[in-house]
């Protein structure tokens, strides 16, 4: 038991440690960060150590399987990367900075719970825990009015979404008499004519997760939150926090899909709306963080398209894409953070002449952007290939065609950034970026993106080996 829940316990431990460390305000930001880094490394080790665990726990309400364990590894990695790159919290008052790391692990724990949640109770608790941590993180940047605005919007939308979800859960409970997914599936399996309560219940639950993915119609919070939150927080939101939503939503969709095919169409349409909205509105952004918020909305759209893909290929596709999605956003926001050292909230203009100010940053940005746009031979292309081909195999070729059109569209604003970074010359006032501490990390991640594109089998074959379909279907 201790061993099985190693990652969770690790996160919990880290959470407690930081809680006590940061009780008094005497601990410096730097120290807190190093502690966090060490602890997150520990969590990562724990997650890797526990990768082979499996089984149902706590009265079948908590499920360990290859899927959840791999996502936990991803999350742990994401946490560590955030601890490494997501620093310093310039725009957060010094007093609160150390609390950030506390919340950081609270969110991490919640995400891991979500990855394995097999009962709506666990789901609800974990989701609230995650949400509260994120609300607080976004709200930490007190100085700026917009930051407050975004956090209040965030919490309003979030609370609504979870309320809707909860209401849905109540209906599912009514229909199945249990909060357990197993029971849900059994009742789905059993009768061809489901209880009238089941369908609306599921729809409501799903929609509450669209909020976590920042997908239509619950996307509206993302741009504000990303733009106004302090950049490490934005990075956290864009990279790891997405994983939780993906992990759980896909688990649910994957279980329900076979019995309720109409869900495929619903999710597919929502996916198209999401990616189109994200890509088009991104055209008009000048604040880079806001632009990436929209871009990540679009990415969520692609992921949702993959979720309704063909049964056997979809899991690998979704997991692979979430992995590289994590990498790409880490790189992008790492660059944003580097730029932020000189003036907050970078705009397109502040990318001017990046190639001369810091060649590595420019190249990393270039790779990440083209990868986000899904251009060969980068990982993004291969991820998209997996998602789209899986969806096409599932019989949604028209959705796929539309999605491809979308990724061509998206190129337009990614090229804007490339243009800013590479064409033209450095503006007078721009300071040359000295060797940022995160260079190595960025370089490694960038190379990873390139390699995963050229030789994706290193990951895909591992994932195929994990045989998600079996572990996902109870």
């Amino acid at each position, binding site marked *: 038991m201790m061993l099985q829940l190693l990652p969770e316990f690790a996160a919990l431990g880290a959470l407690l440690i930081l809680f006590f460390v940061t009780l008094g305000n005497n601990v410096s930001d730097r120290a807190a960060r190093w502690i966090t880094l060490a602890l997150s490394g520990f969590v990562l080790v724990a997650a890797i150590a526990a990768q082979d665990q499996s089984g149902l726990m706590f009265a079948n309400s908590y499920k360990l399987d290859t899927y959840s364990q791999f996502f936990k590894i991803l999350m742990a990695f994401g946490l560590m990367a955030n601890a490494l790159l997501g620093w310093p919290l310039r725009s957060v008052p010094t007093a609160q900075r150390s609390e950030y790391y506390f919340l950081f692990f609270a969110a991490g724990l919640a995400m891991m719970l979500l990855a394995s949640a097999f009962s709506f109770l666990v789901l609800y608790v974990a989701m609230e825990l995650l949400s509260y941590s994120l609300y607080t993180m976004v709200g930490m940047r007190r100085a700026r009015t917009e930051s407050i605005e975004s956090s209040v919007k965030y919490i309003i939308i979030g609370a609504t979404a979870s309320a809707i979800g909860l209401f849905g859960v109540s209906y599912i409970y009514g229909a199945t008499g249990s909060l357990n997914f197993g029971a849900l599936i059994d009742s789905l399996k059993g009768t061809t004519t489901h209880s009238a309560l089941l369908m609306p219940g599921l729809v409501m639950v799903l929609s509450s997760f669209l909020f976590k993915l920042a997908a239509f119609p619950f996307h509206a919070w993302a741009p504000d939150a990303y733009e106004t939150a302090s950049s490490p927080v934005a990075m956290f939101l864009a990279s790891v926090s997405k994983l939780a939503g993906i992990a759980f939503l896909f688990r649910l969709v994957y279980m329900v899909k076979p019995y309720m095919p109409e869900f495929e169409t619903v999710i597919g349409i929502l996916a198209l709306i999401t990616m189109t909205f994200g890509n088009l509105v991104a055209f008009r952004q000048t604040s880079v963080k806001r632009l990436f918020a929209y871009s990540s909305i679009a990415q969520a759209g692609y992921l949702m398209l993959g979720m309704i893909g063909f049964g056997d290929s979809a899991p690998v596709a979704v997991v692979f894409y979430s992995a590289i999605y994590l990498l790409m956003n880490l790189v992008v926001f790492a660059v944003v953070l580097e730029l932020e050292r000189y003036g907050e909230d970078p705009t397109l203009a502040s990318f001017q002449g990046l*190639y001369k100010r810091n060649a590595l940053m420019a190249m990393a940005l270039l790779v990440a952007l*083209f990868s986000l746009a899904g*251009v*060969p*031979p980068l990982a993004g*292309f291969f991820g998209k*290939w997996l998602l*789209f*081909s899986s969806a*096409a*195999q599932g019989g949604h*070729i028209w959705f*796929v*065609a539309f999605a*491809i*059109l979308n*990724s*061509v569209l998206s*190129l*337009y604003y990614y*090229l804007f950034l*490339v*243009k800013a970074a*590479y*064409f033209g010359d450095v503006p007078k006032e721009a300071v040359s970026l000295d060797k940022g501490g995160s260079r190595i990390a960025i370089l490694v991640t960038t190379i990873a993106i390139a390699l995963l594109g050229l*030789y*994706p*089998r290193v990951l*895909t*074959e591992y994932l*195929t080996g994990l045989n998600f379909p079996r572990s996902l279907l109870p």
Partner: protein
Amino acid sequence: MTIPILSLIILCPAIGVVLLFFVPEGKEKIVRGIALAVSIIAAFLSVWMYLAYDRAAAGFQFIEQYAWMPGLNSTYHVAVDGVGMTLVLLNAIVMLTGVITSFSIDFRVKEYFILFLLLVTGVFGSFICMDFLLFFIFFEIAVLPMYLLIGIWGSTNREYAALKLTIMLLAGSGLVFVGLIMTYFASDVRTFDFITLRDSGGFSPSFQNIVYPLMFLGFGTLAAVFPFHNWSPDGHVAAPTAVSMLHAGVLMKLGAYGVLRYGIELFPQGAVHWGPVAATMAAGGVVYGALVAAQQTDLKYMIGYSSVSHMGLVMFGLAAGTPLAINGAVYQMFSHGIMTALFFSAVGFFYEQTHSRNINEYGGLARKVPWVATCFIIAGLAGVGLPGLAGFPAEFMIFMGGFERFPVLTLIAVPSLVFGAFYMLRVLQKVFFGPEAGFTPKVHDIGIFSGSARVLLAGLIILFGIAPRLLSDLIAPYAMELLK
């Protein structure tokens, strides 16, 4: 153990890219040296391959195949047949001459050559790689660097041109991507291997009729098929000299090659079914380009539209689909490749000398820069399809073959011989003859080194005009095979 010559050819520029990364900033001599070295090696290898190719056996040769994505049945599978060989040779030539021409690039040299070699790698890869997925990847590698190359080192209205070019080409490859996915799942042999797909794909006619247009339009955009050509003149004009050379000389051929290989070969019935439409678009392009070129005052625009016209010929030959026409189309790819390469390198030289591309500001250059002028005139005459130069055999075969299938369209396209002569001679007269223009005193003829590129190209134009069998013997078996 045979030498993996094709892999070596791809590796040359690829290694060049890697090496260049480690050259410290400011060491431009080294950068240029590396670029020149790899391109010379690549050229030698290509010529060697050309000589080593077993003409009697024909078909695919120098085959190599290694596992790449077993899960998807996608392998690293390279081979060349008559067509691939022709185009690899072309690419090697243009690469070499392009690098020589690029020596005049004077800022951000390292980045420039990295991107340049990257582009060339992509082109080589797409020409010799027999795996649809891998081909697509190389294809994109070949297209993307254009954005930076034009945007950074370009001239007129470069950002607009670069953006338009990239978006249009990627929209095209988007179509191809859709077709790629459909093809993969429609074939009962779940594989990307081109030869397997072609031989045992078993695509139903109705399916072919759906997918072929995707391929034709997707790749056709890159081949600047009318009316999806508008990116290309702008792109040519904006791009730096050597990039225009590669772009018009090789990249557009990549589009035509895609149509031929992954359109016509994979979906023959679809090709036949859509033949008339394709041929109409192509013939329209031939005449249209030739007529619009007559209005241009910017040399590069003139060449750009003449390329539209000439690529129209290629597409027309492909659409006609008779052995002769296919043969001519491939031949035209090659001859137009060296021809435009020569054009652009010459124009680039004039531009460096005079900082103007407006033909009305030129005059009497023939006596100031006899060498380059002669080269340009040779290219121009080849462009109007003068016998004895590489353009003629191609146009001859295309029209001969096309007439069998589309007599009327051919008769519509043939007058382009006159239209071509009209604009080309107009330019020759304005630029090279007549009284000397004001700036001519400070113009001086080209140096041996960078001149060698132009002379080489001119020599090839004459060689392949006199002895077309050097290529057509390689292509003919393929063209015959295709019809079976």
